[in-house]
């Protein structure tokens, strides 16, 4: 037997004899594929369709016969600033700012958290579990508690900052400061996601690499930079991309922490879509905002795919 050859096994692929598994693998996947088409692809296509029609309270009952308006829904949604949630362009900017800042701040915290519990010490298991608490608390609870914490005058954050002489009775839930209150709660809630992924990655780093770095005289920061980060780079990129997508689509936090509609500074794109659909009852405009949201979501996804392909090309 040659090394690497598995006897009596059928191999998938382009060989002839003993080659592909026949029809079975594809047919096993077909039900899932059909469900994906029905549950995900079709609704997306219908949403894109609705975005070009004037579907509102008058036409919702027979939406297939709603009048065609071309790109009017897109232009109105993007540019009209009179809406209670501002324009969709504003929503895009707020969403991107929110997602980027959340990722940039939460990622180093997650890495730091993973590093602190990577090596053995007494009580490590407790801390490894304790770090997950923000992540397992339902987001609705986090948002509600966050609101109470940031109330001016009575909230714990405002009181603590007042004691430190930083600010006195600041309105953290109104105006531009509302964005920073929401950002703080988001970072608190999501950093364990990066921590989990990086911790898994750290477990796979070989001890020989650390030893080699020590032999070369490398201290902690050198090991971090030349051993740890390169080894967990794939997971790090994955966590950043997935985190960004999650932040972009976060509806619960602004909806629960503030009223509906929330202050303009936290009117992210999901809130825009919800408001247009279920408050203004303008489904065509909501669908247009939804299409815009898909485009925004595709950006981090595209970055990830490009990065993955680049890595594969480099390694091959």
């Amino acid at each position, binding site marked *: 037997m040659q090394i690497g050859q598995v006897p009596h096994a059928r191999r998938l692929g*382009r060989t002839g004899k003993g080659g592909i598994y026949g029809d079975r693998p594809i047919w096993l996947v077909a039900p899932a594929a*059909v469900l994906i088409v029905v549950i995900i692809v079709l609704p997306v296509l219908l949403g894109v369709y609705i975005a070009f029609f004037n579907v509102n309270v008058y036409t919702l*009952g027979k939406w297939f016969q709603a009048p065609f308006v071309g790109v009017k829904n897109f232009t109105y949604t993007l540019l*009209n600033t009179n809406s209670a949630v501002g324009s969709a362009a504003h929503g895009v900017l707020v969403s991107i700012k929110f997602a980027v800042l959340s990722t940039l701040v939460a990622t180093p915290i997650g890495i730091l958290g993973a590093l602190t519990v990577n090596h053995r010490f007494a009580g490590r298991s407790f801390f490894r579990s304790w770090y997950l608490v923000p992540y397992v608390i339902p987001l609705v609870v986090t948002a509600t508690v966050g609101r109470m914490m940031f109330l001016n005058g009575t909230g714990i954050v405002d009181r603590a900052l007042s004691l430190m002489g930083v600010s006195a009775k600041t309105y953290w839930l109104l105006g531009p400061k509302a964005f920073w209150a929401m950002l703080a709660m988001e970072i608190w809630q999501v950093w364990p996601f990066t921590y989990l992924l990086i911790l898994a990655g750290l477990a796979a780093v070989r001890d020989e690499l650390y030893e080699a770095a020590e032999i070369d005289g490398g201290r902690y920061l050198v090991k971090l930079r030349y051993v740890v980060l390169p080894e967990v780079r794939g997971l790090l990129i994955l966590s950043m991309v997935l985190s960004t997508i999650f932040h972009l689509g976060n509806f619960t936090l602004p909806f629960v922490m503030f*009223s509906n*509609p929330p*202050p303009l500074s936290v009117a992210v794109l999901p809130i825009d879509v919800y*408001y247009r659909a279920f408050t203004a009852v303008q489904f065509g405009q909501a669908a247009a905002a939804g299409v815009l949201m898909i485009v925004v979501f595709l950006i981090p996804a595209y970055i990830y795919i490009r990065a993955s392909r680049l890595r594969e090309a480099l390694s091959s």
Partner: protein
Amino acid sequence: MTTTSNYMRRGLRRRKVAAVSTAMATLLLAACGSGGGTSGAASNGGAATGGGSGSQSFKGQTLTVELLPITIDAKGYNAYHNAMAKAFFKATGARVKYVTTSESSTEQFAQIEATHTGPDVLLKAEDGQAFASGAFVHLTAADWKVLGGTKQLYPVQLEACGPKGGPYDEVPMYNVPYVMVYNTKLFKKAGITSPPTTWTQYVKDAEKINDPSAGIYGTGFDPSDTQNSDNWKIAFYLSANYGGALYADHDLGNTPTIDSAPVQKAYEFWYDWYTKYHIVNPASLSWQEPQLQAAFAAGKIGMLPAVKSQYEPLYNSGAIGHNYAFATMPSVPYGMNSLPPGGTAPGSFLSQDGLYIGTYAPVKLALQFEKIMLEKKFQVMQYDMTGNMPVTTAAGDQVEKKAGSLLKPFFKALPSEEPEPFAVSWPVAQEDIQAMTGKLASTLATTHHLADADIGSALSKTEAEVKSGS
């Protein structure tokens, strides 16, 4: 090396998957576009098929009725619902299946309109949007005869059930009037002997009560609560006093008058409570309604406008205890001695919820349930359970006789209630107005200043937004 047969097999597989996907897609599109229903006899959005004598047997049928989720006094609610179900079964031979939903009214109504399915009868606030959608049955004169006629209702109730002169798609179930509430202990301490009847007196009394060092303020507001507190209510009262309104008339196609002088004066006066008279807690700029009510219950606020009787349990359990009373709202604008020409003094805006019948539902059966709901016995029971006022004069008289003096102002407000606008754009206008008050609160929080021009500009944008969606 791939053989020709492998290519052919792959091609066949792809065609099979595509065929199955297309079939599923076609089925889904057919379901979306169809006007299916569960059990129904009425045409879509049109008149009902006419009433029956009530003695028709519906044995074996089930009527799905959606009422509010039970949040307090579950035992009492269950008793009320079960009693109605029992009476319904006795009268018709059919059963009631009660359902609740956590969806908002707008979300659910949109689902019903799009799918033409849902609960047979559902409880909903009145609005022109639901009427215009055609998702609910428009009742005929014969239907009202089955229900016992319209004369059993307070005259103003019908004004909220449909456009002027009918037809109506809502059968009112209960009425929730809003009056003001005041802290009798704080009033006594400040030497105030009676609640204010003018807005000038309101401000003066609030200033007397004000004691910021003790955390006590004369009155309260929650402008940044864009979800709970319906910040259009204060404008409803105040603009009426000034001789204006949020909408020019009560009818379906009516356009808003949000950007009008009376409405602007109303909001200028309201925000002056913070900027000029300083009679509200500065922290309340970011409060939501539950916090505002909790502050009153804690004895930290002298009086609040536009509250409903359902807050009694909250107040009774708070530090205020039973040291509060209700009163009708002040009716003379600030700085005036009497109502200006055209000004009115609404006792309350008419806030009612009622039952709607889906066009897919068994209308004759649903009418039987609504008839039972309107019976005096169940109207009184509903009041006992919830504190919501009855909609029939017979039940109202009985309830008023046994109600304590505490609730007298609510009954006093009933005859002069004015209905909310019935325009199709009204539900959206409410949300836009609430969003506007939130934005103004944000401006105040950031700049600590709010000019009349800011309010005017906000009202103008709000009206433009409401009109653009009509």
